[in-house]
């Protein structure tokens, strides 16, 4: 049983009944799920969560869809890895990596998709759909297949080949659009008004977005029910960042954290698509949309729906934002791989490069407990590292050839 009492507009506060709607009819602001926190406080405990499944559904009391039956491929409960070697490189102290590459389709999107399609089934939809920069496409295609739903996934035609294959393999419809993500998104907003489909990030978005809160819940549980001091989160639409912050606040509100979180939130964007970072750097209240041009295609949203809320969260919490170059992104992917054995896609490169930049600027500090969110697997964006990554040597299968390539006096420790 959920503890949802309705939907509420984030802009003007108007309230609505639970339905497959996503914008306020009055002001077009985004709707958000409104919970009965007193009921949740009575229903949850650390013990009950610990006894739950090793997935996002252990937190079902804090989610807007029922756990039974959920569309569940096992999203969530990914490792929180202590990253001392990376911390040393960056001059930081206690650093953790939330390794969300280890989800069923290898990105955090499985969290939101699992919640969205569970809700879609409750509403009685027969077709799952989405606009995607790639990771969501993988996730919706897979979860729809698992749930026996038909699917229509809309992507920009210039997406990485790997992400197209890893979507199409699930057998649903994959529609490549001749345009960028914002064009795909706009088409989907219009299609959602025409077809009675569950567009997870359009008409189901209110519920979908709540799935991201589980990244905060897990982090706190894995830290022994404590919040970190600082989180670094990639920004595409801005939803993930705002929901992670909300997740920590909710844990305190329902009594699962003893102390009120003093969380600082920082956001990561690629220079080629940095509308939110630009507003922060320019000290502006206006987020100007941009035409994306970056290798971090999973973050390439030029007109971010939750950009204003992400900007507010960063400002209110005393965090920072950075816009990092494509070269920095590639170097950061390799830095994370080299120091911690975690292979991230380009969005993870954006996050680590931003962490590096903010550490240098003193915004992320060595006395803080820091968590960086790595949201997608490096195998999804091999193109990014392929030109500068390869075998150390290519040799004939003989000892002589090996010795020539690696002279014994150079590889034996003295």
């Amino acid at each position, binding site marked *: 049983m959920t503890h949802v009492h309705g939907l509420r507009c984030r802009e003007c506060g108007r309230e609505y009944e639970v339905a497959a709607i996503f*914008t306020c009819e009055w002001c077009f602001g985004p709707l958000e799920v409104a919970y009965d926190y007193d009921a949740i406080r009575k229903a949850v405990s650390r013990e009950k969560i610990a006894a739950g499944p090793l997935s996002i559904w252990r937190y079902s009391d804090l989610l807007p869809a029922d756990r039974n039956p959920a569309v569940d491929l096992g999203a969530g409960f990914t490792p929180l890895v202590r990253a001392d070697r990376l911390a040393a490189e960056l001059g930081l102290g206690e650093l953790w990596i939330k390794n969300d590459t280890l989800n069923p389709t290898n990105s955090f999107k499985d969290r939101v998709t699992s919640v969205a399609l569970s809700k879609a089934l409750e509403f009685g939809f027969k077709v799952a759909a989405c606009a995607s920069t790639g990771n969501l496409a993988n996730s919706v295609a897979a979860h729809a297949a698992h749930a026996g739903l038909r699917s229509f996934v809309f992507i920009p035609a210039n997406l990485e080949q790997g992400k197209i294959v890893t979507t199409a393999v699930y057998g649903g419809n994959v529609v490549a659009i001749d345009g960028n993500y914002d064009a795909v998104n706009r088409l989907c*907003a219009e299609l959602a008004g025409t077809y009675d489909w569950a567009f997870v990030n359009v008409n189901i978005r209110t519920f979908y977005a709540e799935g991201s809160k589980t990244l905060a819940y897990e982090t706190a549980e894995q830290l022994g029910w404590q919040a970190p001091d600082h989180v670094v989160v990639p920004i595409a639409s801005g939803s*993930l960042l705002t929901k992670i912050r909300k997740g920590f606040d909710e844990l305190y509100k329902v009594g699962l954290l003893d102390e009120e979180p003093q969380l600082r939130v920082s956001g990561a964007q690629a220079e080629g698509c940095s509308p939110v970072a630009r507003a922060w750097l320019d000290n502006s209240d206006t987020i100007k949309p941009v035409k994306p041009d970056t290798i971090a295609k999973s973050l390439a949203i030029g007109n971010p729906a939750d950009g204003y809320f992400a900007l507010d969260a960063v400002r209110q919490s005393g965090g920072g934002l950075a816009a990092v170059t494509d070269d920095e992104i590639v170097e950061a992917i390799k830095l994370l791989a080299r120091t911690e054995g975690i292979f991230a896609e380009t969005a993870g490169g954006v996050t680590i490069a931003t962490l590096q930049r903010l550490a240098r600027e003193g915004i992320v500090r060595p006395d803080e407990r820091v968590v960086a969110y790595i949201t997608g697997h490096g195998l999804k964006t091999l193109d990014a590292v392929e030109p500068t990554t390869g075998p150390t040597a290519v040799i004939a299968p003989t000892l002589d050839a090996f010795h020539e390539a690696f002279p014994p006096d150079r590889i034996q420790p003295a």
Partner: protein
Amino acid sequence: MSVTVRIPTQLRELSGGASEISVEAGTVQSVLDSLQAAHPGFGDRIFDEHGELRRFVNVFVDEEDIRFLDGVNTPVEDRATVSIVPAVAGG
């Protein structure tokens, strides 16, 4: 000299259910003003109390977001299409 305005689902109660409305060409501002004149109530929904477009309303002239053009001063020529699209999708 007329242009087509595409009405999102949320505003169709004001247009008598119509998904498209024809108004005179001009600028985005004049087109939206004509819409308000023909169907009172549109203005309050699209513009905030300072007369600025609400921040979660996106307006396109043909395929382009007016924030990449000249905002509400963007010219709207004969036979163009103006779309009003809610901004809070995606991601």
